[in-house]
């Protein structure tokens, strides 16, 4: 058992390093601005999904507030830069910390509940945030003759600058700045999520899932562990939001659209809920599918819906689950032969 754990840990490290090397090489192989931009977005979404996967797939909290945490990270970073002239680099970490605070509030209110109740309340929290932003019409600050709302309102928060790669890098390499920043955030977030999945905390969640009675009797507190994972994952989600804001140089309430939330949910489902490498697989698959369906853009929603239904019915373990299944079959054949 221990040997098995150690070998999975080694496999995880190897997979991670290979993927990282590929990601570092990619922009030099395909230097087009479009490809680099889409890959940056892929890193951002993969980060969010990897944290959501921790919350939902590992800790078993069906939270739909993930994009609310993402939005608060981005908005806080943007607002600090716009109103207080804080650099995006510092603002990013404040954004992550505010996301933790929000997640603690949501967690204290929702985590005593179960399953569907949590899904409903967290969805409502995200919707309330969306409504408060788009109905924000009060003038907070004058910039020339235009009036800026505190949250940016329906037009979104803009003109808060970016990470300043323009000043440090030659013009043709500027897009690579946010590319590598997003990649770094994804790498750290993925390492964190795999560490949690394989750590005693991950085992505790597994115990609670497999035998809740025994786990509780051994003194594992569901509420405490869930709150810890929920808050920790909020930090990386907030960071991803800040990178998003710096990448697009604008933060709008569109990140709280239900369709985007469901796009990310599809990534998690397709990749494999609760699997270590599921989020990256799923995010990659869905970004590719989305790219392929560019011509059929008017059927995009239905396509997403169909993917969700097919996977949840036919392949509930997702792509990562299918890969595991294939590997296990090979391993079994090998032991049978040997």
């Amino acid at each position, binding site marked *: 058992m221990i040997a098995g754990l150690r070998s999975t840990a080694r496999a995880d490290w190897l997979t991670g390093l290979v993927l990282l090397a590929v990601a570092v090489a990619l922009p030099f192989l395909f230097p087009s601005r479009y490809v680099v931009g889409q890959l940056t977005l892929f890193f951002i979404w993969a980060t969010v999904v990897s944290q959501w996967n921790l919350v939902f797939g590992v800790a078993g909290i069906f939270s739909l507030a993930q994009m609310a945490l993402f939005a608060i990270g981005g908005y806080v970073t943007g607002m600090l830069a716009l109103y207080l002239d804080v650099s995006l680099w510092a603002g990013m970490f404040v954004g992550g910390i505010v996301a933790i605070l929000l997640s603690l509030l949501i967690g204290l209110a929702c985590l005593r509940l179960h399953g569907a109740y949590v*899904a*409903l*309340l967290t969805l409502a929290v995200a919707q309330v945030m969306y409504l408060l932003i788009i*109905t924000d019409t009060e003038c907070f600050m004058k910039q020339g003759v235009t009036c800026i709302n505190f949250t940016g309102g329906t037009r979104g928060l803009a003109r808060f600058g970016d990470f300043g790669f323009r000043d440090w890098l030659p013009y043709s390499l500027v897009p690579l700045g946010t590319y590598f920043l997003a990649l770094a955030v994804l790498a750290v977030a993925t390492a964190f999520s795999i560490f949690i999945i394989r750590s005693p905390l991950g085992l505790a969640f597994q115990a609670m899932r497999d035998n809740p009675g025994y786990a509780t009797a051994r003194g594992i507190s569901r509420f405490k562990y869930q709150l810890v994972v929920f808050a920790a994952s909020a930090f990386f989600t907030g960071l991803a939001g800040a990178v998003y804001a710096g990448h697009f140089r604008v933060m709008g309430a569109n990140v709280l659209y239900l369709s985007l939330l469901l796009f990310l949910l599809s990534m998690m489902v397709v990749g494999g809920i609760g699997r270590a490498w599921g989020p990256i697989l799923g995010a990659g698959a869905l970004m590719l599918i989305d790219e392929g369906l560019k011509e059929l853009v*008017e059927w995009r*929603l239905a396509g997403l819906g169909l993917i*969700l*239904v097919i996977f949840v019915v036919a392949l509930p373990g997702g792509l990562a689950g299918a890969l595991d299944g294939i590997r296990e079959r090979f391993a079994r054949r090998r032991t049978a032969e040997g």
Partner: protein
Amino acid sequence: MDTAIQIVVSGLTLGAMYAVSTIALSLVWGSLRMLNMAQGALLTAGGYAAYTAVVTLALPVWIGLPLAILVGAVIGALMYLLVVRYMLGRPGFETNVIIGTVGIALILENLVLRLYGAYPLQQPIGLPDGFQVGATWVPWQNVLILVVSILLMVVMSAFLERTRAGRAIRATAQHQRGAMLMGVPVGRVYIQVLMIGGALAAISGIMLSTITTLAPTMGYDPMLKAFIICVIAGLGNINGALFAAFALGLFEAAVQYFLGVRFGFPALLLLVIAALIWRPYGVFGRRKQARL
């Protein structure tokens, strides 16, 4: 005094609309342990089906309305036959079915968008005129919605309490395997409940569209409110849902009047969260003995 009348009138209308959407959700959750995220899309489909029947096909209203309700029921049946059936009895049903119904909702929403376009349409059905209470104008349509919602609630409880099919549904809700062993055809119960849920959603879609407009995403907001009401009433508690719908409708109307429209929903949510911290299984919900 006029203020009070105004708040009560708009609060009761809001409450009645919430109540109808809530019954369907409550019924489906209460008997199948299934959170139907396609409820909003079903509601939209019902509203548009009525529009097609009455405007495009120029059918009389008394044929058009039952037809639209039938469309809701058929979609409910298809949901069971094409998707839900395959998840039943498998591990993780509660979350899988949420994801699956989200998928169905996306497909339905896209269909409506492609068939009717994104622009809001005017629902032609509805009672004209109204009457005056003090300084407040009360349209008859709002009164009709109130009456229909209460009527539906009464009919649903009678159906569940007094008929054979209703007893089968309650048995399945109590203990699925037990019901199966007693010879209750659980599959048929599922399809029945989803058809009734679809029909109810269509009715609330039609009623909702008569006082607002038809739009492809019109079902989302009422669904979310209905969810919240279900949560506060205790998921699956139909009578509690009726009471909670009206109480929250009145509360929201009062907040909208005194603090401004934009704070209606946030205040509602805060109230619900406070209530849930006090009673995690809903104000009227009964704590279930956890089986380990």
